[in-house]
């Protein structure tokens, strides 16, 4: 296999290269032997390889974003069940502490949205009983995970 052929095949993502890399390199070698290899063939291999890499990355971040959205939805359901969205009553609800750990690294992009959702669900809804500033929430990325801790306003504050 010629060096040039192998270099252009390296543009493809790993699993694809393992499966088809030898065949593409063999085709390039065959074209070279037939004196039919054109510069645009090598450009085509590199261009297609880069497009595949981009496509694979997009798909991964889409799945990550979907996972994050599901995690946020689960958190909202949990908070709703815990009474965070309930109407104010004579007996104020107990303070709610919690922590959401989202494993998808793609949450990095969604962090402002997630914080906003957590803030809305834990602070603004109960702000009629306590100042919104009495809750705290922050996101802390730890080793690819993002941990969001929150505390709702306590009944005494």
């Amino acid at each position, binding site marked *: 296999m010629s060096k040039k052929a192998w270099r252009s095949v390296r543009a493809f993502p790993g699993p694809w290269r393992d499966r088809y890399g030898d065949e593409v390199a*063999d085709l390039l070698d065959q074209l070279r032997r037939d004196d039919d290899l054109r510069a645009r063939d090598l450009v085509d291999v590199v261009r297609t390889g880069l497009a595949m890499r981009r496509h694979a990355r997009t798909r991964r971040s889409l799945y990550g974003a979907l996972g994050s959205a599901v995690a946020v939805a689960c958190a909202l359901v949990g908070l709703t069940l815990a009474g965070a969205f309930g109407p104010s009553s004579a007996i104020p609800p107990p303070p709610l502490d919690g922590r959401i750990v989202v494993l998808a690294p793609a949450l990095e992009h969604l962090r402002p949205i997630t914080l906003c959702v957590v803030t809305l669900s834990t602070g603004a809804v109960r702000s009629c009983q306590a100042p919104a500033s009495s809750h705290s929430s922050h996101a802390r990325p730890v080793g690819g995970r993002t941990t969001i801790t929150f505390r709702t306003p306590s009944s005494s504050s």
Partner: protein
Amino acid sequence: MPAAGRPTLAGPPLFVLMSLASGPKHGHALMKDITGFAMVRLGPGTLYGAIGRLEDRGLIAAMPADDRRRPYELTSEGAAVLEASVAELRQIADEGASRLAILARARRRPRPSLGAEPA
């Protein structure tokens, strides 16, 4: 409209299916065959990109490798998709032909001269 709601293909994947309809072929043979009947020279990356997608969808299958060359064959699902794609292309071509015929008739019809005085 695709036959029985079956998905249809166009471009390089369709050319690969068409080529394999005449028998199993490896990459180099596919490239030469497609250049022959479609007058399109697919680049090696484009060709194997199409092969990969078609194999993922089960429309073609790899046969035992001969050295570094691996021939591919059409599966029954691939043949059905090719049939639907060709039917769709034929329908579009027929529509195009009938519209061209209407255009030709309209051009043959004598036009009133622009400078003529109304009677």
